[in-house]
């Protein structure tokens, strides 16, 4: 099995004759026998996925790394976090995906209003299945648990990804509106309820 290990701002992908998908152009070095080929505009998800991604503006250019050896992946000196998925779904903006192992499907989900508030388009990318996914963030990622009776509110600009069964809603309470009245500020924040984990970065986009 291919194994992903985060080493601060670099991702180690150890391949044993299998393959991982990674953001095109993110390879900085490799050891061993590894082949790189473009996974196509659907990121290998087929034509329907490709069309959905184009419509949603969540197009991600992926490459497939196959062979034996270690591939070093990095992007923009961003911090790397590896998330283990067990029959779970990771919801993440396409630009934060660095790599994921076989066994994880890559698709686009329409996110509704949340995409609008963060200026990220109306959709987000879904990585689901069993395996590992590596995501990047500006500054070290902070993982915050969401559980019943323990809702979490985050700044849409700091939100990066989420796993589990969470419901997201926009908070724009009276107090928030009074902020807008005083100029600038953040008119909305995201409220998560349910069961899962939310990943945020310390730098707002």
């Amino acid at each position, binding site marked *: 099995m291919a194994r992903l290990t985060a080493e601060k701002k670099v991702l180690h992908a150890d391949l044993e004759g299998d393959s991982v998908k990674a953001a095109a152009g993110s390879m900085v070095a490799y050891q061993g026998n590894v082949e790189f080929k473009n996974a196509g505009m659907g990121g290998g998800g087929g034509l329907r996925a490709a069309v959905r991604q184009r419509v949603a503006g969540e197009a991600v250019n992926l490459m497939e790394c196959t062979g034996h050896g270690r591939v070093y992946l990095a992007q923009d000196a961003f911090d790397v976090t590896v998330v283990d998925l067990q029959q779970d779904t990771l919801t993440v903006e396409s630009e934060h995906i660095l790599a994921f192992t076989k066994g994880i499907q890559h698709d686009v989900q329409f996110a509704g209003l949340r995409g609008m508030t963060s200026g990220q388009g109306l959709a987000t990318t879904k990585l689901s299945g069993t395996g590992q996914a590596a995501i990047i963030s500006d500054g070290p990622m*902070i993982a915050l648990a969401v559980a019943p009776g323990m809702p979490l509110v985050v700044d849409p600009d700091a939100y990066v990804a989420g796993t589990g069964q969470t419901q997201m809603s926009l908070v724009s309470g009276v107090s928030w509106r009074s902020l807008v009245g005083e*100029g600038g500020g953040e008119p909305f924040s995201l409220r998560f309820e349910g069961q899962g984990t939310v*990943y945020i970065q310390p730098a707002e986009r």
Partner: protein
Amino acid sequence: MPTIYDPNSLPVDDNINHYAFSIDLNGEWFTSKGAMIAYYGNIDFSGVAAFASRAAWVAARFSSPLYTQDWVVAAGQGKLVIGDRGNDINSYDLEDGNLTIKAVNLLAFQPSLELKQSIVPGFVTLIGTGKFLASSNGPVIFVEPPFRADPDALLGWADCPSPSQHYDYNWMAQSFMAGIQGMFGRESGEERQYDFTGAGTILMQSSEMLRVDSALMRIVESQTNLLDANSAGALGHKLIARAQQSNM
């Protein structure tokens, strides 16, 4: 996999990492607008002016009218996570002291502290006892006077009297023309420094990204009241020329 925090495991008034800080809120904190990146619990954010209409003590604590638009009061119970564009965040404890800091770098402070505008434009002074959070571009360096600081890298100072401006002697002596140019606002190098004397501590950051401080313009604008109409007009022309030059 990173540690997964919940409201109980988040640090109590401590850093989560270099770039994020967790406040254990039980009551009120002043926070700068946009500093909140996440929170658990029941926390209300209201504009300083709106909150002041319900709680008279706010006006006494927050005596910086130019900055009220940029600040909110976070009130309630819970864990509040503070971040600032990926800059380093440090917490400081003041004990019956005073500390002056660059306004854009101040992120949050307890209401037991009093906020005032510094005489140096773009800086604010905190007086009293309590905790506050400030960001810096890179780790903070603490220095003792006598010391001369590059204004761009200066983060703040504690206990010292206000700094005076110091112009490099060689720079002044070498060329009288250069002196004239300086008066016309064409200085561009390191000839201008802040000079600190007396007892205290100076806070420096290791690098500086230029940040827009919306209040700074209002401060400078209010100081133009010192000029008579002719001088103000002449200044206006120079500023227009500068804006046009930087647009090219």
